[in-house]
C-alpha cells in the first residue's frame, strides 16, 4: 500500500509546483473562484481521503422507548441462543446514518461549492450533501434520506430527513422509522488531521429523546480505497443461523451450487 509520509507528500507537492504550467493540465482543479475553503488548510475544507478512526459496531445505552426496548431485548435473546442478527447492513442495504455510525476503513470526501459528497469504502455507499439547500416538500423515503448542509462557524451541520426506516442503526439492530431525523456536525481539527463527527439521532417512534454518537475520521495516508462487496459471495453459513430482523432481509438465492452438506460447496439453497 502506498504509505506517504508527510515528508514524501510535501516533496511531491513541491516537485509538482516547480514543474510549473507544463503540469497544470495533469493536476488541474476545476475553476471555482467563488468557493470558500478550497485550500486544504482551510477549516471549511473537508475534501480528501480519511480513515475511520475506530470501528464501532454499536451505539451504547440508547434511550429506547418501552416498545423498542422490548424488541431489542428480543434480538439479544436470539443472539444469546447462537443466532446471527440479520440486519439491513448484513443484507447489503444499509442506511446513510448506519455508515456514519459504523464506518470502517476509508472515506473519500469530494467538496465543491454546491455539494459535499461522501464515498464510503465500507459499507459501500455515496452520500450527497447539498450545501445551502432546503429539503423538498415531497420526499420519497429512501435509505439515504435527503441531506442538506450549512456551515456554523467551522462546523458543517448536515440535516437529513426522508429516511425509509428500512434499516437499523447498529449491529444490535437498533430500530429506525420514517420519522428519523439526523443532525450531524463535522468539524476539522486545527491541525487538519482529524474530523470530529457527532451524529445526533432523533426518532420519536423508537427513542424517548435525541441521542448522539461520537465518531472521528483521521487523515489517510492512502490515495486509493479498497473494496468491500457485501453481495459478492453470499453463503449458506451466513443465513442458515440468522435471525431476520425483517423478512425483507431474507436472501434471494441467485447463486447456488453443491449438494449435500459439504460446506465448501454450498453457496445457498434455492427456495423450494
Amino acid at each position, binding site marked *: *500500500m502506498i504509505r506517504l509520509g508527510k515528508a514524501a507528500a510535501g516533496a511531491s507537492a513541491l516537485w509538482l509546483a516547480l514543474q510549473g504550467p507544463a503540469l497544470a493540465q495533469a493536476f488541474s482543479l*476545476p475553476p471555482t473562484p467563488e468557493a470558500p475553503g478550497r485550500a486544504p488548510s482551510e477549516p471549511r475544507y473537508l475534501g480528501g481521503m480519511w480513515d475511520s478512526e475506530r470501528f464501532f459496531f454499536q451505539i451504547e445505552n440508547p434511550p429506547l422507548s418501552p416498545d423498542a426496548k422490548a424488541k431489542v431485548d428480543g434480538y439479544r435473546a436470539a443472539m444469546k441462543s447462537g443466532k446471527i442478527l440479520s440486519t439491513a447492513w448484513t443484507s447489503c*442495504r444499509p442506511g446513510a446514518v448506519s455508515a456514519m455510525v459504523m464506518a470502517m476503513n476509508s472515506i473519500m470526501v469530494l467538496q465543491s461549492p454546491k455539494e459535499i459528497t461522501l464515498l464510503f469504502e465500507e459499507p459501500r455507499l455515496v452520500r450527497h450533501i447539498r450545501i445551502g439547500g432546503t429539503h423538498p416538500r415531497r420526499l420519497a423515503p429512501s435509505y439515504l434520506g435527503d441531506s442538506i448542509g450549512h456551515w456554523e462557524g467551522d462546523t458543517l451541520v448536515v440535516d437529513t430527513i426522508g429516511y425509509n426506516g428500512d434499516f437499523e442503526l447498529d449491529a444490535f439492530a437498533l430500530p429506525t422509522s420514517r420519522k428519523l431525523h439526523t443532525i450531524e456536525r463535522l468539524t476539522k481539527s486545527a491541525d487538519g488531521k482529524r474530523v470530529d463527527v457527532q451524529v445526533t439521532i432523533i426518532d420519536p417512534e423508537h427513542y424517548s429523546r435525541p441521542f448522539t454518537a461520537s465518531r472521528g475520521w483521521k487523515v489517510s495516508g492512502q*490515495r486509493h480505497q*479498497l473494496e468491500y462487496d457485501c453481495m459478492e459471495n453470499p453463503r449458506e453459513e451466513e443465513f442458515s443461523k440468522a435471525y431476520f430482523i425483517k423478512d425483507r432481509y431474507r436472501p434471494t438465492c*441467485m447463486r447456488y451450487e453443491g449438494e449435500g452438506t459439504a460446506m465448501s460447496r454450498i453457496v445457498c439453497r434455492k427456495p423450494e
Partner: protein
Amino acid sequence: MTMAKAIAPRPLATGALLLVLAAAGAAGVAHARPQDPEAALLRVWAPDNPSDRRLASADQPPPLTAEGAKLLAQRLAERKAPDPQFDRTRWCAGPGMPRIMLMPYPFEIKAERGYLAFLFGWYRWYRLVDMSGQEPQFELPTTMGYSAGRWEGGALVIKTTGLEDETVLDASGLPHSDQMTLTERLRVLPDGHLEERFTIDDPAFYTRPWTAVATYHPAPAGIVRDDICPDRIARGEPAVAGRGGPQ
C-alpha cells in the same frame, strides 16, 4: 471496433429508466469548451445505447488466445441457461471495470483536489482516479482496480491495473486476468458527446492489445440514483436492466 446495437424487449420495470436515458440523448447536448476539457467532463453522462452491452461484436471479435476463446465459448453457451454462473452481477456482485461503463445506467464525473471520481447509477458503485501522477501500489486486486489519470491535450487518459480476475469484461463473458492493463481515453467531442476508448492489454487471454469505443450523452443532474440491487432482485427484477438474449 463498433458497439453492438441495443436489444429489445426489456422488462417493464426498467423501461422508464431506459426511456429517460434515450430521451435525454434526443433532447440535445451541451456544447463543450475545448479550452477547458476537465470542466466539460464534470457532469452526468448516460450511455448512447442503453443496454448491457458487449465490447466487441460478432463481425469484429476480439483477438482471443485459444484459452480465451474456449472460455468465451463456455460462457456464451452458459448464457442460454436461466442462471449463468459466470455473471456475478446476477446476484448483485460488482461488475468491475470496464463493464460498469457499458451498463445501461447514468454516471456522474466529479473532481476533487488530485482526483476524479466516477459515481455510478448501479448499486452504489463508484471509482476514484488518482490524478496526482503517482503510480498506484496495491496489495489487493479489486473489481474497479487502481486508476491513475493524466491529461494528454484534450483527452483524459486513465491507466488501471490491479483488477481482480473474477469479473468479466462485458455481458458476453469476455475474460480477463488480474494482469490486465486497461487504458481509457476520454474526450468530450465538439457535439457534446463523451467518447471513451477502452484498450485491453492482457496477454493471458488476448494475442495483442485491442480497443473498443463507447459514447455517452449529457444527462440531467440528479438522475444518478441510489440503486439497491438486492431490493430489485427480491422483487423479481433483473439485476442489470435491459438484459435480453445474446446480442
